């Protein structure tokens, strides 16, 4: 079977590392490559949160600009460019729905710390593939209704656990338990899927 090795070689030949270095050198062509690699998934993530194509376009543009402006703080050798970019994209989207929903309770400092380039080190690089998508979707179906709901509210709407408790009319402690068990269940399920 020559293919897995071949694909690995292909990815290594034009991988995250080279692309990050080119971005750091302010090579405008690298921006095109970055977009071609992650534009679709970034747009899909942002659209899933904001549910408006025009706003999603603006936020994706902002995402790429942010990555371009901050890429010098990114470790090209160890960093996972795609994961970082997606975190920035999701944060832009969450920031938008929070501010438009008059939910100003949490500041953008918190978003900033979750998209600091130093977080995105030593990660698996090729996580965005149909195989991964299938595993995640399968894992999500194994959650019960409340667990699915809290993951959705967190992922797509950026609600805090207190906000979820209010929205769902449940005690905070109950919501916290749902969140923790849902996350643990997903991680266990993915771990199992990976090791099979």
């Amino acid at each position: 079977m020559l293919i897995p090795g071949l694909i690995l070689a292909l990815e290594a030949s034009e991988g995250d590392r080279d692309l990050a270095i080119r971005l750091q050198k302010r090579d405008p062509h690298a921006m095109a490559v970055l977009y071609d690699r992650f534009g679709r998934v970034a747009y899909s993530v942002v659209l899933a949160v904001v549910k408006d194509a025009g706003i999603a376009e603006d936020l994706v543009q902002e995402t790429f600009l942010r990555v371009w402006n901050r890429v010098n703080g990114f470790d090209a050798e160890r960093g996972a460019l795609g994961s970082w970019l997606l975190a920035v994209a999701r944060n832009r989207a969450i920031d938008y729905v929070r501010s438009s929903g008059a939910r100003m309770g949490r500041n953008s400092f918190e978003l900033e710390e979750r998209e600091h380039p130093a977080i995105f080190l030593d990660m698996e690089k090729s996580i965005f593939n149909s195989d991964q998508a299938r595993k995640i979707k399968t894992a999500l179906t194994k959650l019960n209704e409340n667990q699915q709901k809290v993951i959705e509210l967190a992922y797509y709407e950026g609600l805090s656990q207190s906000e979820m408790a209010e929205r769902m009319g449940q005690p905070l402690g109950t919501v916290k338990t749902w969140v923790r068990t849902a996350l643990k269940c997903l991680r266990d399920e993915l771990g199992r899927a990976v090791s099979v």
Partner: protein
Amino acid sequence: MTCEELRGDYETWALGVIEEPERGELRAHLERGCELCVPGVRSAMEFVTTLSSAVKMVEPPARLRKRVISLVAPEKPAFPWSWLWAAAAAALLMVSGYLGSSRTQQSARSNQILEIMSDPASRQVAFGPNSPKPQGRVFVHSTKGVLLLVAHLPVLPADKTFEMWIIPKAGAPVPAGIFAAHPDNSANYLKPGPVDTSQLGAVAVSIENTGGVQHPTVDQIIFAAPIV
């Protein structure tokens, strides 16, 4: 709080739902570079990022690409589109010369090329723009086919040819036809017909003996464009 107590909060932090006092406690561990919590949140963030792959994939409008690229190169196109269109124009004139086709076939083929290039439903991938050679762009359209525009190809001996490969995410590379370079070492090659874009991993080109082969000679692959 100890690292052990904070362990269960790595994921809630990564997901952005952590609350006080855990948030402040964990932040303190991260700020001092805690050797347990830092890798812990990295791993949790990696996990949260994988949740993105469950999102329904939607093709962004083609103009978004231009908008993003124009952010960093407002004066001129970030990718040498002028070259690309020149290559397409050259294809109008030159395709028949290589394929021995009639003028009508030539024009039909040129139209196919322009159609794939201009269709917003085509997925485009640039490859190699920073390496000396070769460089270009692949257009993939689910019904119209795979179009390769490439420059700076190596000069081949008479008994060799270029062969394109469609490489699925799983399974063996599928031969997608042989082609020759123009005198300026560029080429435009179209493999018409439907493509299962969801299963497409990469498009590659290798140097093979005249006539082509059924399996690529791995060390003769001159470039490959992963289709993300």
